[in-house]
């Protein structure tokens, strides 16, 4: 049984060619939750299989005896407080290993996976990268990433529309990214829900493609507010479209004046050098900030 949460006996496979023997939580330290609630699971067993974690299962029950009259109890707790506690824990785990994590969010089809694969190639020999892939179903994306040589784990959210910090915490445990590396988290393709869920990342990176319309930042503002960097992808298609790059970036900056922006093409590699430089500079800045405490 998993020492982290009591989830059932299962096999996790990080790399199809090298199946991990038995249950693969690679270290056996006590999982130290120092937030004030029990680490208990009301979500039914989640299923670990072939480098994937499946959250397609529904909620289960909890029971406690006790007798009292009807009365009001003040709670005053943020609905997201549970997620945020897990996110803090993830952030602490990542900081302790010097891992720089980015959470990639976008609508489906913006080219996130292609962009990540290309970026991993560009970072080869400079920064070690591992990847957590989130999708409702299939491990196609994790396989595409593994083809680049980077370790990847797939989380299948089932009916879920976003990754949450608890799922990502388990994935980090399993993936066990090497010290001072970079972790890419590719969220479920959805420009709405992932905005509200902190995963413990250093930055959210929103990917938008030029086939989507300049007003996406105005239509889905939450995501553009939550992000620190906008990658405008598929710039190779611009000659064939009436897309106004300036208008799109102006819309994004109206929503979030602090947003940084880069125009890139995962297909031709245009603009990727700037993105790689951004990653290296941001990772170094974060490491320096952590070293200072």
């Amino acid at each position, binding site marked *: 049984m998993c020492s982290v949460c009591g989830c059932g006996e299962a096999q996790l496979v990080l790399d199809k060619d090298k199946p991990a023997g038995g249950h693969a939580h690679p270290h056996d330290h006590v999982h130290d939750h120092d937030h004030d*609630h029990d680490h208990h699971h*009301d*979500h039914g067993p989640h299923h670990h299989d072939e480098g994937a974690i499946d959250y397609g299962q529904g*909620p*289960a*029950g*909890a*029971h*406690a*005896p*006790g*007798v*009292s*009259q*009807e*009365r*009001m*109890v*003040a*709670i*005053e*707790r*943020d*609905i*997201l*407080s*549970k*997620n945020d506690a897990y996110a803090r824990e993830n952030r602490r785990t990542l900081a302790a290993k010097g891992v720089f994590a980015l959470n990639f969010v976008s609508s489906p089809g913006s080219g996130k996976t292609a962009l990540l694969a290309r970026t991993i190639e560009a970072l080869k020999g400079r920064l070690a990268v591992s990847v957590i892939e989130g999708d409702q179903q299939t491990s196609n994306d994790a396989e595409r990433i593994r083809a680049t040589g980077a370790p990847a784990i797939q989380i299948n959210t089932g*009916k*879920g*529309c*976003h990754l*949450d910090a608890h799922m990502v915490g388990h994935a980090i445990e399993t993936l066990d990214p090497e010290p001072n590396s970079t972790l890419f988290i590719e969220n479920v393709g959805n420009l*709405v*829900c992932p*905005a*509200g*869920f902190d995963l413990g990342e250093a930055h959210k990176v929103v990917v938008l493609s030029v086939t989507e319309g300049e007003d996406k930042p*105005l239509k889905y*503002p*939450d995501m553009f*507010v939550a992000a620190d960097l906008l990658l405008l992808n598929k710039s190779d298609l611009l000659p064939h479209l009436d897309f106004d790059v300036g208008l799109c970036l102006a819309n994004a900056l*109206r*929503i979030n004046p602090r947003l940084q922006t880069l125009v890139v093409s995962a297909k031709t590699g245009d603009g990727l050098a700037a993105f790689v430089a951004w990653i290296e500079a941001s990772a170094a800045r974060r490491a320096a900030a952590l070293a200072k405490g």
Partner: protein
Amino acid sequence: MHEMSLTESIVEIAVEAAQKEGAQRVTRVLVDVGALSHVEPEALEFCFAAVSRGTLAEGARLEIARLPGAGWCPDCGKTVALTERFAACPECGGFRVQMTAGDELKVREMEIA
């Protein structure tokens, strides 16, 4: 539908508090949802019955208080009402309004038996 996982959090928080109080069941849960938050109250209500089934909160009534949005407009120098998260100031039309209220997402209190 991230309302489903938000509802799971609401039920978890309520059940945890109810267990701490030694309650047998939860009869009412009051939550605050800001008008500018990324949550659809109807979806929360829809999910609540399904998510609470089999827990101490089964059958409880979910009451959602919708809190109005407001922001500080530095150009007008005052707090103005906001109906959209990144809307222009309703008085001067400027876009520099900083949201000060309306993104609440909180379990306020509950009634237990």
